[in-house]
């Protein structure tokens, strides 16, 4: 198939909305890494900056929605063009949610920085955030390269994020049982871990959009789910 439309303005429209996705993706990557660094370094100013920057991500999502509506109305996209437009819309929604979770992480950082640190938790959260961010970077690469194999790899990697969450869940439960003064901090940290786990799901959704974009079919839902926390009653069960 030829890459170029007869109407070159159509190509520019499609390139435009995809460029917005990449820009949005870059902003979200920065938000996630800044938020996790702020948490680890107890950097309240950086956390505040992450919260402020989320507005720009939200604004970009609205811009993408408006542009997608315009492309649908004016160009009547079909086949791979239609899938491009649909995936742009969905991915912008995923990125917007990822931005919200990063913002929430930053909010909790402001509170946590006032409290004594919970032993060892900072490093685990940082590693989890780093893994999620790497998944996101790869998902955006897979999107722009139309790389189904990489997208499939990302879907499988979500299980590792789930396992990290299981480990943190157990760790926080243990800290809370050992010393009730840890409860407030651990509750916040647990929400952060849970949010990171949800971020992994949104990144997985982006990877699934890549598979749909290229093949025209959604991937089979046969991934292994590793989040066992819904069934836990004591730390040693995770």
């Amino acid at each position, binding site marked *: *198939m*030829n*890459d*170029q*439309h*007869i*109407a070159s303005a*159509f190509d520019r429209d499609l390139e435009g909305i995809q460029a917005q996705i990449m820009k949005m993706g870059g902003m979200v990557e920065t938000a996630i890494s800044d938020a996790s660094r702020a948490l680890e370094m107890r950097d309240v100013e950086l956390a505040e900056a992450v919260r402020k920057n989320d507005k720009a991500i939200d604004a970009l999502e609205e811009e993408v929605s408006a542009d997608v509506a315009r492309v649908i109305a004016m160009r*009547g*996209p*079909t*086949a*791979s*063009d*239609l*899938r491009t437009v649909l995936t742009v819309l969905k991915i912008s929604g995923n990125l917007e949610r990822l931005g919200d979770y990063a913002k929430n992480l930053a909010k909790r950082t402001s509170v946590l920085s006032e409290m004594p640190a919970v032993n060892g938790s900072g490093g685990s959260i940082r590693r989890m955030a780093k893994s999620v961010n790497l998944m996101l970077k790869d998902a955006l690469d897979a999107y722009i390269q139309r790389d189904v194999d990489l997208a499939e790899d990302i879907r499988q990697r979500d299980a590792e994020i789930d396992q990290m969450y299981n480990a943190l869940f157990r760790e926080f439960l243990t800290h809370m049982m050992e010393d009730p003064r840890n409860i407030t901090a651990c509750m916040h940290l647990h929400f952060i871990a849970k949010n990171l786990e949800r971020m992994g799901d949104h990144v997985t959704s982006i990877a699934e959009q890549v598979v*749909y974009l290229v093949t*025209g*079919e*959604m991937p089979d839902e046969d991934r292994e789910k590793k989040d066992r926390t819904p069934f836990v009653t004591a730390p040693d069960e995770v």
Partner: protein
Amino acid sequence: MNDMRVTERTMSNDIKIAANNVDVFYGDNHAIKGVDVEIENKAVTAFIGPSGCGKSTFLRCINRMNDTIDVCRVTGDIHLEGEDIYAKNIDPVQLRARIGMVFQKPNPFPKSIYDNVAYGPKIHGLAKNKAELDEIVEKSLRRAAIWDEVKDRLDAPGTGLSGGQQQRLCIGRAIATAPEVLLMDEPCSALDPIATAQVEELIDELRQTYTVIIVTHSMQQAARVSQKTAFFHLGELVEYGDTGTIFTNPSDSRTESYITGRIG
């Protein structure tokens, strides 16, 4: 992705017309190359493709309109409900009463609205008396969604109607002989968007009763009105399938290039 849920697009799944290895030559020009296709009963099938791809030529094979062109030669076979339409014992005139046709430009006879519709049933002897003929005319014009607009001036010339009305009159004329199949060669290309929408609505109603095949240059029209789409390119049938699939996930890259508006 199954987007066929968007509107009800049920199909009977019986085959009305089966074409086997059809080739058409205009003198030395090989216009249709080995086309095999099965057209479903009581469904709308759209033929799409760039100019000169052979879609109209193939459409005209189905009611033997190409017989009227001296240099045109058709090989292979086409069956209408199992019957070979190119067999020696088939009368093309009778065949065309079973397979009606509507053309690109509305072409009413220079006669009254009534006579335009009554002409076919008269020559085929479908009405025993004037009352029956009146009934056929009314029924056909109602089916063509134009009755209310013309019932008070059936004696006025058909050529005095607007373009959209003329085209619906021609559709009424085509269905007056109670055909089984309706061939439409770009029926909306001379109409404005409102008249086009009316004809498209009509096509959707007609498929309750008829098998409709429509040649169109408007991809959006094919997507709107048809259940099946066939893409022709350089005389070949490149891809044939459910309209929803063709427009969301075609399997041939040439189809994709054409429907997305890329250079093939």
